[in-house]
C-alpha cells in the first residue's frame, strides 16, 4: 500500500489502527467481552453433551468406534481445560457460589467422561449417556447464572 498511498497517509493509517486496537483492549478490560466463568462452564457443558452424543450414536451403530473415541477424547481434553480455567478464575462475591457449584459439577462430569472413554460400546453406555446429559444440563444452567450474575 505504501506505493499507492502518500507516506503521510500511511503513517496516519497506522496510528488509527493502533488506536482501534488499544480501544479494543481497553473495552475488553472494561467487560464488553463475555464473562470468562460462563465461557469456561459453557465449554465444559458442550464437552459433556458431545460425549453423550458420541456414546449414543455409537451405541446405535451410526458412528465408528474410532470417531466416537476421538469425540470423547476431544471432549475430555476440553472439559479438563475448562475445569482448570474455572478453578483458576478470580471471581467476585456474586459469582463465588456459582464457581463452587461449577467445580462440583465439573468434577462429576470429569468422572463420567473418563468412564465414557473406558465403557464405550459396553452395557453401561446407556446409563452414562443420561449422566452426561444431566451434567450438560447442570452446566448450561450454571453458565446462564454466571452470565446473569456479572
Amino acid at each position, binding site marked *: 500500500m505504501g506505493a499507492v498511498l502518500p507516506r503521510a497517509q500511511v503513517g496516519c493509517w497506522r496510528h488509527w489502527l493502533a488506536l482501534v486496537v488499544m480501544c479494543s483492549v481497553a473495552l475488553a478490560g472494561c467487560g464488553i467481552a*463475555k464473562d470468562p466463568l460462563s465461557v469456561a462452564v459453557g465449554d465444559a457443558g458442550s464437552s459433556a453433551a458431545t460425549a453423550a*452424543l458420541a456414546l449414543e*450414536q455409537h451405541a446405535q451403530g451410526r458412528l465408528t468406534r474410532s470417531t466416537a473415541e476421538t469425540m470423547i477424547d476431544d471432549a475430555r481434553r476440553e472439559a479438563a481445560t475448562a475445569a482448570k480455567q474455572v478453578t483458576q478464575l478470580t471471581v467476585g462475591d456474586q459469582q463465588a457460589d456459582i464457581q463452587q457449584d461449577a467445580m462440583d459439577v465439573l468434577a462429576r462430569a470429569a468422572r463420567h467422561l473418563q468412564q465414557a472413554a473406558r465403557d464405550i460400546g459396553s452395557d453401561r453406555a446407556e446409563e452414562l449417556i443420561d449422566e452426561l446429559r444431566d451434567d450438560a444440563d447442570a452446566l448450561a444452567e450454571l453458565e446462564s447464572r454466571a452470565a446473569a450474575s456479572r
Partner: protein
Amino acid sequence: MSKIFGVALGILTAIGGFVDIGDLVTNAVVGSRFGLSLVWVVVVGVIGISLFAHMSGKVTALSGRATFDIIRERLGPRAALANLTGSMAMTLLTLMAEIGGVALALQLLSGVVPVAYVLPVALLLWLVLWRVKFSILENVAGLMGLLLVAFIVALFQLGPDWGELGRQVVQQTPDTGENGLTYAFYAVALFGAAMTPYEVFFFSSGAAEDHWTKQDLWLSRLNVLIGFPLGGLLSIAIAGCAAVVLLPAGIGVSSLSQVVAPVGVALGVAGLVVVLVGVLAATAGAAIETALSCAYSIAQFAGWPWGKRLRPSQAPQFHAVLLGVIVIGCLVMLSGIDPIMVTEFSVVFSAVALPLTYFPILVVANDPQYVGENTNGPLLNLVAMIYLVIVMVAALAAIPLMILTNMGA
C-alpha cells in the same frame, strides 16, 4: 464431447476444491452457535471470491502471466512485497492448518493420534507435488472433495424444520445467548474463510500452468460462476448440519470430530466414512494448493522460473521453496499445536490480509497493458469497489473483534 467433458470436469473440481479446513471448521462452529443466521456472509463471500477469481483468471488468460507476476511489475516491488508478506504469511498458516486437517481426518478414520500422521503426510505431500502432474493433482483432489456432498444429503436426511432454518436465515441476529460482538467476529471469520487469499493466486497460477489463452476465458467464467457458488452450498450445508444436530444439543464445535458427527447421525457409518474421505481429499487438496501458492508467489515476486511442469533442475528455487514451506508446516504441526486453533487464527488473519490481495488484482484487471480491451466494465468495477469497502471493514475489524471476544469465546 471432450469440450463438454472439460467443462464438467472444471466445474466439478471447482465445487470439490472450494471447501478447505477453514470452511469446514468455521461453518460448523457458526452453525452450532448461531444456526443459519450467518448464511448471508457465505453468500457475500462466495460472490466476492467468484468476482476476483474471475478477474484473476482473465488477467492470466489474456496476458499469459500469473497475477502476482504482474502485480510486482505494475505496482512496484514495495507494494508487491507488502502483498507477498501478507498473503504468504496467511497461506503458510493455512498450509499448517491443512496438514493438521489431513492428520485429524486420518485420526477419525483410524483412531491413531494425529501427530503420528504429520510426518508421513508431509512426506507424501512433497512426493505428490514433485512427481504427479498438475492436472491429475487438481482433478483427483477436486473430484474426491465432491464426497463432501454428503453434508447436503445428511441435511435432507435429518429432516429439519425448514421453516425454523428459514427463520434463522432471515432473522440474521443471534438469539442463542451469544452477544453481538461474537456474532460480528464470526461474520468476519466466515468472510475470511470464504475469501481466502491463496485461492485467487492459485487459480491464476494454475491457469498459467494449464496454458490458458483468450479462448479459455469462457471456461474460466463457467468454473468460477457455477463451480464456486455450488461449492458455497457445501459450506451452507455444513453449517446447516451443525445447526440441526449440534445447536439444540448445546454442543459448540471445537474439534473436527464434532464437524462430521451430524453426518454420522443422519447417514450412519457409511455416510460418515464417505464424508471423512471427502474431508481428507478437501484438506489434502488444499494443502497441495497452499504449498504451491507459497512457491508460486515467492518465485513470481523474485522473478525465478516457476511451475509444476518444470523439473527441480529447471526451477531449483521454486522447488526449494515448495519443500521449505512443507518442512515448516510439518515442524509446526509436529509441536502438537491444535490444528483447529491454527485454523481459527488462519481465517481471522486471512480477513486482515484481504485488502492486500484484492486491491492489486482490481488494478491489474483494469490495465489495458495486460488485458487489452477486456478491462472490467463499469458495473463489474462498481461491484468490485463495493467489495473493496467490505474487505477493508472486515480487515480493520478482525483484530479488534478477536481481542474483544477472546477469539470468539
